């Protein structure tokens, strides 16, 4: 009942006209970001954070969360129409979505993608609503040693977002950890790695680094690739048939569960969830041979799963302050910029914010369904904007993003330099997400480590003798083992799917 009452308060906040407007703006911009290839949700949030600097914190985060799940919705449009996923979570949608478009069924594919995203997105918010408050209550008992291990748990995510090589991922994670220490040491007041430059004393601004690594680097990388071609086909009706909808009802349930559970796990990103959901649907189907040929369940499953991840991944971020993906890390950074510290106290100290955000996700899901079903044709037209026209405009947004955080041109230079670093990393196939995780988690980790050792007067056994800390340490080990297993499983699943698709051809 408590959750129900809190949710009512949340709706009171979310349905405020200003919040409704910014929720709509976030959903619209997010869908646009998802539709346009080359800008993922993480880069989109990073670029648009400064626009929210003048807004009240709840309104700002409602808009940014809208961008996040809006991008998840929009990613399917390019996947279905031009065989190019708008973001990583839509990679699996390509397999059947594009085949449906080739058969002249692009409309129902886009419609099913929107419906599945709506159902799974809404159900995952219910999961978030039910699971987050009890987890936050437990986390209230955490002291500095426990917080240290929670941050360590966050760092284990690096292993899951490492891409092809774990060594490369860990190395770039350490790089992020290192650059977070540049500037003034908050405890001793000593300057670190500033080399006499007073502008470096404030350290690297997280948003500038993120804008560079994700925004500028992504634009440089995409601008140098050959352009994708829009598949010219009549969209027709965007509504799937009643029979298709009925057939997809169990799919909605399964993909929601998979997406939500994967979202809860450190490193469980939308790409993993969508491939797992696709794999499960194919295995459970009476006609698995239809998958890869334009099966509508092959669109519903990955799209539902990648939207369900959004609700799941909000749980550890809001309750423990652990961002499970790059987009969540950036969203967490945005919360901190707006003076909110994610963690167990958030539910006690800012109930209006938390419940307003949760309620806005329900509202946002409805808005996205309304935006996506009738406006499919409009989004398809957006794809016709030539990239050479779009890329410079996005770069101007990157500039505004980096500048307006502290009204400082130095941050723009930081973004430009990290843009080149990010481009070089992408070209050499080094993952950039671990840098951001290291950068965001390192200051909190360092503080927790120092506070813990201050309490114990330098005795390191404090980390192993407290039951919750020991349990969290065990979870860290489990997370590392899980990440290794998940990597193996994912590569196997992708291999099986690719082989299956080749055999069917």
């Amino acid at each position, binding site marked *: 009942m408590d959750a129900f009452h809190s949710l009512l308060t949340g709706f009171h906040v979310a349905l405020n006209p200003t919040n409704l407007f910014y929720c709509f703006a976030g959903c619209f911009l997010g869908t646009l970001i998802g539709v346009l290839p080359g800008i993922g949700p993480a880069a989109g949030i990073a670029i648009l954070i400064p626009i929210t600097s003048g807004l009240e914190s709840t309104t700002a985060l409602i808009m940014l969360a809208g961008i996040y799940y809006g991008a998840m919705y929009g990613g399917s449009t390019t996947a279905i129409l031009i065989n190019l996923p708008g973001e990583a979570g839509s990679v699996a949608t390509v397999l059947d979505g594009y085949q449906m478009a080739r058969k002249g069924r692009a409309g129902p594919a886009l419609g099913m993608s929107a419906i599945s995203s709506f159902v799974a997105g809404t159900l995952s918010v219910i999961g978030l609503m039910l699971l987050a408050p009890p987890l936050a209550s437990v986390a209230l008992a955490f002291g500095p040693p426990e917080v240290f291990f929670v941050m360590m748990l966050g760092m284990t995510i690096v292993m899951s977002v490492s891409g092809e090589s774990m060594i490369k991922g860990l190395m770039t994670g350490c790089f992020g950890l290192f650059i977070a220490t540049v500037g003034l040491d908050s405890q001793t007041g000593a300057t670190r790695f500033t080399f006499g430059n007073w502008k470096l004393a404030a350290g690297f601004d997280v948003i500038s680094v993120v804008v560079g690594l994700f925004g500028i680097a992504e*634009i440089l990388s995409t601008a140098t690739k050959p352009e994708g071609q829009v598949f010219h086909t009549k969209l027709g009706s965007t509504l799937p048939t009643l029979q298709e909808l009925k057939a997809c009802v169990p799919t909605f349930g399964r993909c929601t569960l998979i997406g939500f559970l994967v979202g809860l796990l450190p490193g469980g990103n939308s790409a993993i969830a969508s491939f797992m959901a696709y794999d499960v649907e194919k295995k459970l189907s009476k006609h698995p041979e239809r998958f890869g040929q334009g099966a509508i369940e092959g669109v519903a499953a990955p799209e539902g799963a990648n939207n369900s991840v959004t609700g799941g991944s909000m749980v550890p971020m809001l309750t423990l302050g652990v961002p499970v993906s790059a987009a969540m890390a950036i969203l967490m950074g945005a919360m901190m910029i707006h003076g909110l510290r994610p963690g167990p106290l958030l539910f006690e100290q800012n109930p209006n914010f938390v419940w307003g955000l949760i309620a806005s996700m329900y509202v946002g899901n409805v808005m996205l369904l309304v935006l996506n079903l009738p406006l499919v044709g409009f989004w398809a037209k957006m794809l016709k904007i030539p990239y050479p026209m779009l890329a410079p405009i996005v770069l101007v947004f990157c500039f505004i993003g980096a500048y307006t955080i502290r009204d400082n041109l130095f941050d723009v230079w930081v973004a430009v330099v990290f843009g080149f670093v990010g481009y070089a990393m992408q070209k050499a196939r080094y993952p950039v997400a671990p840098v951001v995780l290291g950068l965001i988690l390192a200051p909190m980790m360092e503080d927790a480590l120092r506070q813990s050792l201050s309490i114990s007067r330098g005795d390191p056994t404090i980390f192993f003798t407290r039951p919750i800390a020991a349990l969290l340490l065990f979870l860290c080990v489990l997370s590392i083992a899980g990440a290794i297993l998940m990597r193996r499983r994912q590569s196997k699943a992708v291999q099986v799917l690719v082989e299956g698709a080749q055999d069917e051809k």
Partner: protein
Amino acid sequence: MTRVDRIFALVMLVFGGLACLESIRMGLWKGEVPGSGFFPLVGAGGMTLLAMLLLITSRGASPGESKTLVFQGNELKQLSGFVPALLFYPIFVHFLGFAPASVLFLAVLFRRSGRYGWITSLVASFVVVGVLHVGLVVLLKAGLPKGPLGL
């Protein structure tokens, strides 16, 4: 492992090694708690060790797996437009202000990477900057750098 990995690992090894030395100089422990250099050493040390590991594992790489950072096809041509524009943009913003510098930046890139005519590029950049100015400066009151023209 590829040639690029070896180059990157070498760069990280040198960078990490220097950062380790500086971290140790800052002091690793102060009384009962870690000093200013402890945490940077964790990051830099990790980087150095992993770079060494990458170098060792890349020793047995077959030549067939080698990839280089050499740009292919149109890549260098496209980059030659974006890179100087990105480097000059903040300088121009500093001297001219956000709006005039952005018009120049956009027009040059539209012309260079999109191969549009100068008139089309200039008109498009004026429209984009105008919309941004109204949306961000007039409506959202964002504080963007102003130049001699007050824009």
